[in-house]
């Protein structure tokens, strides 16, 4: 059976402003894909931990050296709105 999901809640979490029609479209498609993906739940994984790294490598270190970073002017040049020093966005809090 296709998995039933609260698509409006998921879209809000993902910051995707979708129309009612789009939400219905994706809810149905995701339900079918998740039904297929749910096959993983039938596999016995007793004794297996979740994979953190495919080669099992942990804690890679490099020397803590000061090195040049990207030029601020060049970075800001790619942004939709800046004041020349910072990125500018609409208000994060209402009122």
């Amino acid at each position, binding site marked *: 059976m296709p998995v039933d*999901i609260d*698509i409006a*809640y*998921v*879209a*809000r*979490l*993902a*910051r*995707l*402003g*979708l129309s009612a029609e*789009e939400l219905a479209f*994706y809810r149905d*498609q*995701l339900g*079918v*894909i*998740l039904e*297929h*993906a*749910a*096959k*993983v*739940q039938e*596999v016995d*994984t007793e004794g*297996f*931990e*979740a*994979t953190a*790294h*495919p*080669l099992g*490598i942990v804690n*890679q270190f*490099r*020397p803590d050296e000061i090195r040049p970073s*990207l*030029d601020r002017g*060049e*970075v800001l*040049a*790619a*942004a*939709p*709105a800046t004041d020349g020093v910072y*990125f500018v*966005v*609409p*208000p*994060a809090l*209402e009122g």
Partner: protein
Amino acid sequence: MADLTIEAAGSALAKGELSATELLESVLTRASLTEADLHSFLTIDHEGAMAAATGSDERLRRGEPRGLLEGIPLAVKDNFCTRHLETTCGSQILAGYLPPYDATAVARLRDAGAVLVGKTNCDEFAMGSSTENSAFGPTRNPWNPERVPGGSSGGSAAAVAVGSVLGAFGSDTGGSIRQPAALCGVVGFKPTYGLISRYGLVAFASSLDQIGPFARTVADAVTLFEAVAGYDPLDATSYQGLVPNVRPTLGEGVSGLRVGIVRELGGEGYDAEVAAATSAMVDKLADEGAKVSEVSLPSFEVALSVYYLIAPAECSANLARFDGVRYGLRVPGETVEEMMARTRAEGFGPEVTRRILLGTYALSAGYYDAFYGKAQKVRSLLIAEMATVFEQADVLVSPTSPTTAFELGAKTQDPLAMYLSDVCTIPANLAGTPAISVPIGLDSGGLPIGFQVMAPALGEKVMFQTAAAVEALADFDARPAMAVSP
């Protein structure tokens, strides 16, 4: 000249029989004749490429040391950041974006003397198996323009197949190098996780993404790999050990090698001609002295399900950065949340939207353990199964794709059917192991068939040794009609 291998062109360039500018003009002519049918490039950088070729010719004149790829015209997929050269990832959300820096792989190619011709088309943010998800229109298959080139790195595969470049790079998260290589009749290689730095590769699914080359021969793929592989402090997942030295054993053949045929990668859903060509190649390997046996990896049956939980989950986190603040599209809104939601809804195409929603759901409170957490445990089981099988076999072989190139539009309305075209390639991404696709022939419709060789982690040496033997046995020298000179 556009039909030269990297090896042959490099030799002619070094001897002065050919100049880098002549070679560049030759491939640009080929591109100008084929691009209207193919659309393999999103950007061709005529000016930058000519400057690089001229620089290479000057270095030869002055007798300066030559790089590994001196004067060789190449392309990279449009999800590689290129300094001051548009990088869109095939998405409207990044249309017009000019990165302030080069990806490490791009910087190493430039250092090796390569001539960067342009940026190749791809499925949006590398999500797809046909290059039909590009926001800027699909790439077509050079062997038959009614067919897809595969994906997501379809532009790179098609450009190499027709000789618009002598080699190219792509990224492979679930088969996005090997599957288009198979469908376009070229060699495509995904290295061990960590061997090529991903700094400056726009991230899709970080535990799976790898950069790798496309070339017309196995030896050329080795050269491209050698030019970019090796530790990079800018990528925290970069492998700190030595890169396997694969060249000395390239011509040694397969006598005595243990070759495992993967039982789960065949049967229902596989084209009869693909299956027959795969078996015929296995027989040839046995005739050459390989010890062939069938092996079973039951977890491969659920690898696709595991992948379609892990990859969207990681994609939903990685693509959070496209929010209308630092780069790309912004659609205005009253509040920052409204601005972000409108920007993302307008900027992302359907497949990317679908995967972000799927991944957000799989990571959300209450579902994490059942979907993402469980998928990562099954992934550990798959890695353990592969380790066991690699005690009995030096390499594993299979078709690269269950089918040859399908028609445009055939699978765009059915995401699951599209996902199934990656069924043979996904396990190597989940396990972080190297795998390569080598063309072995054409089906009765004149479409290429790819043969996959997989090896254990850091087993590039035996993988390339086998791939070179497969290449020699297949003796595949057909070219797409549109690649015929001039």
